[in-house]
Structures are given as C-alpha cells and as structure tokens.
C-alpha cells in the first residue's frame, strides 16, 4: 500500500444519501478475477445519464468525491473501493460511511473522511459554485481545508499511523505469529474443522 499523507485536488459533489456499493460497481462487473481495471465500471448505471455529475466536463479530473450520509452501504464488495481508486479518486468525504466500505478503504489506501453534515454541504456548494475549488486533505494534521471550510476530522490513531506509513496489515499481523501459534495450541479440539478434500 502506498503511504497517504496529504492530498490536494478538485472534487465532485455527489449529493445523494445511502449510496450503496451496488451503484458504485454493479454486480455484473464483479465476475472479473483481476484487482485492477474497475474504473470504467464506477457508477456504471448512473453514468448512462449524460447529466450525471461524473459526466460533467467541469468536474473531469477530480480526485475527491464529496457524498451524502451512509456512503458505501450494502454489499461488502471491495471492488467498489478499487473502482473509485482506479478512476483516480484518493479521498471520499461524507457525513458517515458504512462499516465494511470504510474498512475496505483503509486496506486499499483510499481515505474516507467523515465531516459534519453542514461542512459536507458547504464543500458541495463551494464545488458547485466553482468546480475549480481545491480541497486539501491532510492526514498528518487531520484537517480538511478549502476556501470555505477548515475543519478537523477524526480517525483512530492506529489506522492513521498505518496509512501514513503505508503498512500492509498482513505483515503487521505476521509479527504476532507466536501469539497466533499459542492461541491455536489452546483452542479446544472439539471446535469444528473441515477435512481436507
């Protein structure tokens, strides 16, 4: 995973609540076995509407998505995060996120930033007013800054450290191999297991 420290970019306002991962990447595109190349399927159905915000030329090249509450609800598909990343997004800002989506973001290195509803609203308005508005998201300082909004955000210190360093979770866990061995030795033998084929 690449480290995330600070990102400045233009934003796209997606003023909808409960954006579920079926919208972010429809299921028909989940049959690929690759991890890359999901960008073209991002919001595949909504993008068929020429007026959809992601189709509007003034927002082309944006790297920050600003959305409504409960973003990423529904299916656990990490493909949703891969699609956002592949389409060039580095940050999603919303009043709230669904748990699995947020977790998946942290694994991939896309930063989900939770801000109060009013601040998200203000960001959307600013971007709609001037699509050239730049937003800076600083993970080190835990601050979002734009012309109209200067706001702190929270993220648990462990995850912040991991993202800043770009550390892989599996590597970190393998440092605990001795603890895992010890735990396994103490597990009751009656717990279910599946015989190898």
């Amino acid at each position, binding site marked *: 995973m690449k480290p995330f420290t600070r990102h400045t970019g233009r934003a796209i306002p997606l*003023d*909808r*609540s*409960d954006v*579920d991962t*079926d*919208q972010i990447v*429809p*299921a*028909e595109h*989940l*049959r*690929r*076995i*690759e*991890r890359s190349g999901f960008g073209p399927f991002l919001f595949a*159905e909504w993008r068929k509407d020429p007026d959809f915000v992601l189709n509007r030329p003034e927002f082309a090249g944006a790297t920050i998505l600003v959305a409504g*509450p*409960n973003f990423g*609800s*529904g*299916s*656990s*598909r*990490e*493909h949703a*995060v891969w699609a956002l990343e592949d389409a060039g997004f580095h940050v999603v800002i919303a009043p*709230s996120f*669904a*748990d*699995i989506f947020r*977790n*998946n973001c942290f*694994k*991939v290195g896309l930063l989900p930033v939770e801000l109060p509803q009013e601040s998200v609203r203000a960001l959307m308005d600013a971007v709609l007013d001037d699509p050239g508005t730049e937003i800076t998201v600083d993970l080190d300082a835990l601050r979002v800054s734009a012309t109209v909004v200067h706001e702190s955000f929270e993220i*648990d*210190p*462990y995850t912040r450290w991991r993202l800043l360093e770009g550390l892989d*979770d*599996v590597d*970190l*866990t*393998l440092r*605990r191999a001795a*603890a*895992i061995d010890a*735990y*396994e030795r103490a*597990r*009751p033998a*009656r*717990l*279910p*297991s*599946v*015989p*190898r*084929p």
Partner: protein
Amino acid sequence: MVTPRTLAEKVWERHVVHRADGEPDLLYVDLHLVHEVTSPQAFEGLRLAGRSVRRPDLSVATMDHNVPTAAGPVDPVSRTQMEALERNCSAAGIRLFPTGDVGQGIVHVIGPQMGLTQPGLVIVCGDSHTSTHGAFGALAFGIGTSEVEHVLATQTLPQRTPRTMAVTVGGELPLGVSAKDVILGIIAKIGTDGAVGHVIEYRGTAIGSLSMEGRMTICNMSIEAGARAGMVAPDETTFAYLEGRPNAPTGSDWDDALEDWRSLPTDDGASFDREVTIDAASLRPHVSWGTNPGQTVTIDDVVPDPDDEAAERALAYMDLRPGTAIRDIRPDTVFIGSCTNSRIEDLREAARILDGRRVRRGLRAMVVPGSMLVKRQAEREGLDEVFVAAGFEWRDAGCSMCLGMNPDQLTPGERCASTSNRNFEGRQGKGGRTHLVSPAVAAATAVAGHFATPEDLER
C-alpha cells in the same frame, strides 16, 4: 465479582489473540467461508506475496453468486471465476462444494446445514450477509477481499471493538407475521444506518419463539440496518437444530459444548450501548416501496409522501405515486430465494399457501432453493410438485435473482416481489424494481397478482 457481559462481548473476548493499547484487537477466526466472487484477488495476493493458506481446515468454499440455476451454457466470464476458485481451493487444500455437487448452495445456507456454524464461534466471509450465522450465537461478519486475504494468510483479523445494541422484540407475533416482517419492521424503525458500528443482539420472547430459520432471516438483514453483526443467544432451539448434524460435536464433546454454549447468553445486568424495543403485537406483513430496505411500510399502508429528495428519487425509480395502496401494486415477477429466505421452512410456508392454487396469468414466478440439500429435502416432501403445479419454475441452488450476477435477472421496468434482502436500484437486473417481502406474502402475491397476504386469498 465478574462484570456482567453481553453475548457479543463474551464471544469477542475468547477470540483475542493479541491486545495492546492503541491497537485493534487481533481476533482469531474459527471458520472462514469462501465463494467465487470475492476470493480470486485474495488468493492472487497471497501468491504474489509468496504466502500460503494457514488453516485450510478452517475454511470451506462453495460457488453460489454467479452459478446458473437452470440448464444451459455458463457464460465464459463466470466460468473463469468458477475455475479460479477450483484451482485456488485445490492448491490450498480447501474443501470446495462446486456447482453440480449435492453439498453446493448459498454459502450462508450450507454453513448451518453442515453443522459448521456453532455458538460462540467467530465466522467471517467476503459477503455482507455473513451476519446470518449470528442466529446461532456466533459473531459473524462480512469482510472485504483484502481481509479475506488476511484471514487466509493468518487466520486472524485486526478488529476495533464494536458497540453493542439490544433490539428487544417483546410479546407474541400476530398470526401471519414472519421473521422477515420483524426485520423489515426493525429496519423501517431504526433506518439503514441505525446500527452502524454496532453488533445487534436480538432479544425478547418473540425472538426466542422463532425457529433457527427465522432467526437466520433476522440476523441476515442486520447489515441492512448498517450493523457489523447480528446475534441471537443460543438456547434449546439452537441445540436441537445442531444435534446430529455432520460437523456438530458428538459424545462427551457434545456435553462439553452444551455446557459451554449455555454460558454464552448475556448476563443479567449487562449493559448495551443502545437499546431499542419493539412490540411484536404491533407488527404486520411488510412490503418495501423504495430503493433501500428502510423504505418499507406494512401491506395495509399506502405509498408514503416523499419526505426528502432520496424518497423522491426512489419513487421515480420505482414508478410509484404517493397514496397508492400497497395492495394495488401489481408485480410482474415473484422470486422466492436468497440467503434471507430460501431454507426449507421458507419453501414449506410458500408451498402451503400455493397448494391447490395457480400463479396469476402473465406473472413470472420462480423458486430457487438455498442449497441442493434444501432442494432434495423439498422434493422428498413433494413441495416441488406444489410449486410446479402452481406455475413456479423450480430451480437449482444459488444466489440467483437476489443480485442478478447470473442470467436470472429482471428486465428494465420489471417489478418483482422478492424474498431477498436488497431493493437497491438495479440490484436484480438493470432497471428492475424490487419489493422486499416474506415468503408468505410472495406466494400470496403470486396468486393474487397484486401484493396480498395469505388471508386475502381466503376472502
């Protein structure tokens, strides 16, 4: 004196492998369920990193999401994914139930069916409806593909401690109100993000009186309220369901297990971070009208006036007008299936209503059993004949029209009464319109041609 603890806290504590200040707990995973859609990139990640699967004996795999449920060619893209699962499981030594195998089925149906889902376990799967297994008093939650890779490599997951939430459904369920109506009623009350960050424990007499199938239906849709997991305390119903299943403990192990399982329920005096209470007697059969599961009313209601932009969008997508009686809405299709409602009890309930009746002319109706063993059991009971005589298609097991990854899909504008779990835009096929209902309402609706309860058919 020991501090009183909740069921979720007890299961959590016994799985902590490593704990340190400022870090998430490292939790041990007892059972990892694997399917074809969210695993290929995880296995590939392992290969690229030169790692192996730590505990293939604590993993089990099946094909469910994109498998065809009727005879015919499999499209090459789906086939590639299915073959990848075969190769990956074979290389890792993971037991796989491929399409065509009698053990095949929806991952959340076969785990309990095999007796692998047991109280007190931590169970994960790259699928958000893993919460289903919480019906046994297991802590079960959906994970993404990076986490699938993490579990394959280490049999553990770093996890932040969740908050706890009690949803108590007190009293007795009225006749005709099913587990599906209970969970739709709960989501309508607390909202699609009502339980974000929480593990729900469903409690109360109405929950205790439900079968394991009913409890699974309720826990299944916990994610639709945003919950990390849903649980029901194990009791005699749980033990009776498990006893004698293939992977359940036997002999003295069974006695030890029982003693342990009886210690799991939430202690008197334990506190939850949030509590919600629902009076069972107030519940009615529910039908969703919108494009998320919180947009749900009872069958006696009308389509509500939109109170925000999201509701307006939903009404436009669903092509519904406020004030329309739910009973006046006429679906084109009825789908009985999915990890929410495809177990033998669901099929029995639907068949009971369809016995001696016919699907309304012009309406498409299909039943997709949750597993090939459920299908076989239903055929032993003659349920298939009831379905076919009524005009339903009788399919093989799979996720099917719940998410439209295989050819079972709605066409644009097609309206469906579905026993599945998500009414998102396009979920069952591009432009498709989904109404979530119970198996009983699905069956009665198929006969009536409009949303109906079984009682409506008697009138």
